[in-house]
């Protein structure tokens, strides 16, 4: 298949079209604006609709309305814009409407800056909106995965009738790499008999993210929880890289994981035995495999582009029998291979002497 050199943001936009998404609503914010720009010409070309909304809030609710009709729909944003979309994501989750939401994240909090960061992990994975809900979160670490995981995102959104978030960052959005657009070929999904399109002779349907009776509301939450347990059973994705018998397990996702692959390779040349576990699905989180790998290696180093967020989930997974270390850079800085290697040597030395 033909390889094309493409920017991450353009690749994710093209992947949406090839996954059958004909409706996109968004609002410009750096560093994700190319997604909107690309779809502004690409969607009309295939008979779809691109609409630049007046705000992030309006964009997510346009997506909500479109999804209610049964169409595939996407919206995207970055950092501060994602905060504005959170209310809508909670509504999508409650109404069980499928929608793909892309966060090409940047440095924060506040207005922050436009450099790549992983400071939105808590917001993405723990749910930034109100109420008892979960969003499937996928974290690409290459331009090719911007395509692969966006294909998957549309499938999972429809399969589980749930919003799916792609948590990427400005590095992956702005970089260019060769990509292959393989044919979108996921198993067929059940018909969207819940969608509303006007009664057309049948009984009316109501999409209702509202339940005033606490007993009924609890039933809704329990039904959602059951779905989330199913997601946790079937949709965990991760990648392992490096030596099977290692002295240290590295855990990182997205851009951090790219750097960690170089760390493993360079470390090997320096005689270090390292293994990388890269979560691809951040929710559901690959807790069990991280625990197993951590016990095998005997020590863990979590590397993130924030001051410690996913490390909490790693700690929950591993428990207190295996020492867990953390290295993070924040504010839009990307940790370098050498600074991580230095940290690794420090960890191995301190573990030896203790």
């Amino acid at each position, binding site marked *: 298949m033909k390889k094309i050199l493409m920017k991450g943001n353009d690749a994710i936009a093209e992947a949406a079209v090839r996954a059958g998404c004909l*409706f996109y*609503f968004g609002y410009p914010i750096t560093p994700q604006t190319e997604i909107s720009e690309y779809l502004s010409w690409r969607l009309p070309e295939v008979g779809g*609709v691109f*609409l630049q*909304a*007046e*705000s992030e*809030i*309006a*964009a997510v*609710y*346009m*997506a*909500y*309305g*479109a*999804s*209610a*009709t049964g*169409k595939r*729909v996407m919206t995207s944003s970055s950092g501060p814009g994602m905060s504005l979309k959170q*209310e*809508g994501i909670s*509504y999508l989750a409650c*109404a069980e409407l499928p929608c793909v939401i892309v966060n090409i994240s940047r440095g924060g909090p506040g207005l922050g800056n436009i450099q790549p960061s992983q400071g939105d992990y808590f917001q993405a994975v723990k749910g930034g909106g109100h109420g008892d809900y979960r969003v499937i979160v996928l974290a690409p670490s290459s331009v090719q995965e911007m395509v692969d995981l966006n294909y998957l995102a549309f499938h999972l959104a429809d399969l589980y009738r749930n919003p799916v978030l792609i948590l990427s960052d400005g590095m992956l959005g702005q970089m260019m790499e060769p990509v292959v657009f393989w044919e979108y070929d996921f198993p067929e999904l059940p018909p969207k008999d819940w969608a*509303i*399109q*006007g*009664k*057309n*002779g049948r009984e*009316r*349907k*109501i*999409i*209702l*993210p*509202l339940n005033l009776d606490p007993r009924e509301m609890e039933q809704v939450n329990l039904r959602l929880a059951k779905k989330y347990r199913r997601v946790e059973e079937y949709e965990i994705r991760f990648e392992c890289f490096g030596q099977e018998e290692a002295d240290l397990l590295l855990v990182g996702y997205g851009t951090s994981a790219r750097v960690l692959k170089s760390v493993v390779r360079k470390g090997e040349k320096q005689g270090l035995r390292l293994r990388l576990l890269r979560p691809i699905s951040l929710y559901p989180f690959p807790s069990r495999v991280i625990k197993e790998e951590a016990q095998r290696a005997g020590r863990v180093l979590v590397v993130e582009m924030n001051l410690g967020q996913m490390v909490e989930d790693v700690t929950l997974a591993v428990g207190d029998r295996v020492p867990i270390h953390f290295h993070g850079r924040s504010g839009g800085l990307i940790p370098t291979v050498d600074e991580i290697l230095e940290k690794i040597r420090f960890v191995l030395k301190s573990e030896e002497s203790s």
Partner: protein
Amino acid sequence: MKTIFERPKTLLEKPFTYCPGCHHGLANRLIAEVIDELGQADTTIGVGPVGCSVYIYEFIDIDFVMGPHGRAPAVATGIKRCLPDVLVFSYQGDGDIAAIGTAEIVHTAVRGECITAFFVNNAIFGMTGGQMAPTTLTGQQTTTTPAGRDPLRTGHPLRLGEMLGQLEGSSYLARVALTKPNLIKQAKEAVRRAFLTQQEKRGFSMVEFLSPCPTNWKMTPTDAVDWVDKEMKNVFPLGVIKDWKEGVHVH
């Protein structure tokens, strides 16, 4: 025997749960009547908001999507862009459409989105218990303006219809009241004109209903009707604000 008056088919056989003296029931009924007369019950989608207006889905027998505070016009936009031939309307109170959802309603009108907004203006936040709304009259007492609304502190009443009338994308805008039989007839005509505007794809349409809120105004239903006629109408004059038939706008 000739039937001259009956329940609209699209109005479900269910007693209204609105407060006594509130005009939501009348507004719901008029919308249902017009949907019936246009033969559109199978091809209409309503978008509900929050506040007292949310209950419309309980009474009108069509597909509904409920949105959050103020965002119904954005939800309606998403639906309409996917299903251009379906009649789509939002049904919103003044707190919803003129406070938290001002941006959404303005830009839906700016885009000339072919949807219809029904706006029930009772000059107060109803469901949350009678706080000041953007449409609260100068001097009107509410739970958050206990000494009466003072424009120097809280601004002036917002005339949304007149504001949207400035926008090229709006095609039909009318303000009606339901306090007298002849006004109810005019209101129904406005609902019909608004839906026709949408059917003919001429852009955005809105009908504003002035409605009493005896519960939060702390008045009897009859006094509340009088207050609409004597006080509200002075600030919110009735009539057609804009009509494409007069050659103003063709989408």
